[in-house]
């Protein structure tokens, strides 16, 4: 299955899940936020493409970015913050580029900067639906060849939180409660902003897990997960230079 087809599946999944969450939660505001973020991302992406290519084109990745922003930002934030997040996300995709690829996960960049600049809140809608997100996320991770990223993340996150639980004599199974499944299975495995090679992918996931743990333990007053992802995005050009084993 080509990346393009996987993106279409992801759009369908995120769209349907948003619809289900809005209907079951009787939450029209959530759907409005998703719609505003999605339409804004589409418009800004088309504008950037037009400025570069003098052609109007709609991309799947802009739809995915808009949908993710709608899930992560709090629904009761004013609409202009969703628009700002979409502009920052799409702007970063077109402007901050290394080796002809965007450096940062667009949705993470847009939401994080909107929180930082405009004091927005997050809600991480659907983050609890592990029974939906784990199977679907595994499918997507397999299709975009990012299962090593997942393995790296789970290795570090489970290891560190388990060690902490043992030291604090806290319930060990409690550690599964710290994992944000939407973040792990939708955002962290984004194909364009993660490394290409196996060892690098594992190191990337490992780094994200370590940073999430450190930021959480430091009690930072910013979104630990988005910050961890963006910092590791910065390291991708370096990680891609890790020597690979033959055949890897």
């Amino acid at each position, binding site marked *: 299955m080509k990346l393009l087809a996987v993106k279409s599946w992801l759009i369908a999944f995120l769209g349907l899940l948003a619809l289900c969450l809005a209907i079951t939660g009787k939450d029209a505001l959530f759907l409005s936020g998703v719609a505003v973020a999605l339409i804004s991302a589409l418009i800004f992406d088309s504008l950037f493409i037009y400025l570069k290519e003098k052609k109007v084109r709609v991309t799947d990745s802009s739809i995915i970015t808009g949908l993710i922003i709608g899930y992560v930002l709090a629904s009761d934030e004013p609409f202009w913050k969703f628009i700002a997040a979409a502009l920052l996300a799409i702007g970063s995709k077109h402007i901050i580029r290394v080796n002809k690829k965007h450096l940062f996960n667009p949705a993470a960049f847009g939401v994080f900067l909107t929180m930082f600049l405009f004091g927005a*809140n997050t809600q*991480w809608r659907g*983050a609890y639906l*592990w029974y939906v997100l784990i199977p679907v996320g595994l499918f997507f991770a397999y299709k975009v060849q990012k299962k090593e990223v997942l*393995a790296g993340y789970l290795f570090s996150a489970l290891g560190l939180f388990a060690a902490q639980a043992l030291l604090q004599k806290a319930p060990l199974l409690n550690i599964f409660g710290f994992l944000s499944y939407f973040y792990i299975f939708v955002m962290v495995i984004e194909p364009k902003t993660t490394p290409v090679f196996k060892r690098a992918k594992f190191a990337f996931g490992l780094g994200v897990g370590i940073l999430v743990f450190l930021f959480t333990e430091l009690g930072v007053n910013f979104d*630990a997960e988005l910050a961890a992802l963006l910092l590791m995005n910065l390291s991708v050009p370096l990680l891609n230079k890790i020597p690979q084993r033959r055949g890897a």
Partner: protein
Amino acid sequence: MKKIILFFLACFILVNTLPAYAHPPSNIVIAYDPAKKMLHAEIKHQVGNPRQHYIKKADIGLNGKEIASLSFTSQASYFSQLLDYSLAEVEIKKGDKIYVEGYCSISGKLKVEYTVE
């Protein structure tokens, strides 16, 4: 490498029989005692270190209007933050809507509404 990946993914799925909570509170259970005019709420927020990762604020509102805001500097347990708040000075009748909105110290919030019976 393939075996390691499969091992961790398998462990993760097999052991994962608990409901999962991310940074925002997963739920808020609200109860109102009309005799004592007391509001009780349990903000469910599972954490690994309640001193560093906790519910920092809870807003209480009546019929869409905020009436109180409580601050916390740590969480009482690994699983949730409890709060009791007296509504003695507020007139509450059947059908009124009380809401509690909990804010995680790191990121995320959740608002839940309760209709007085």
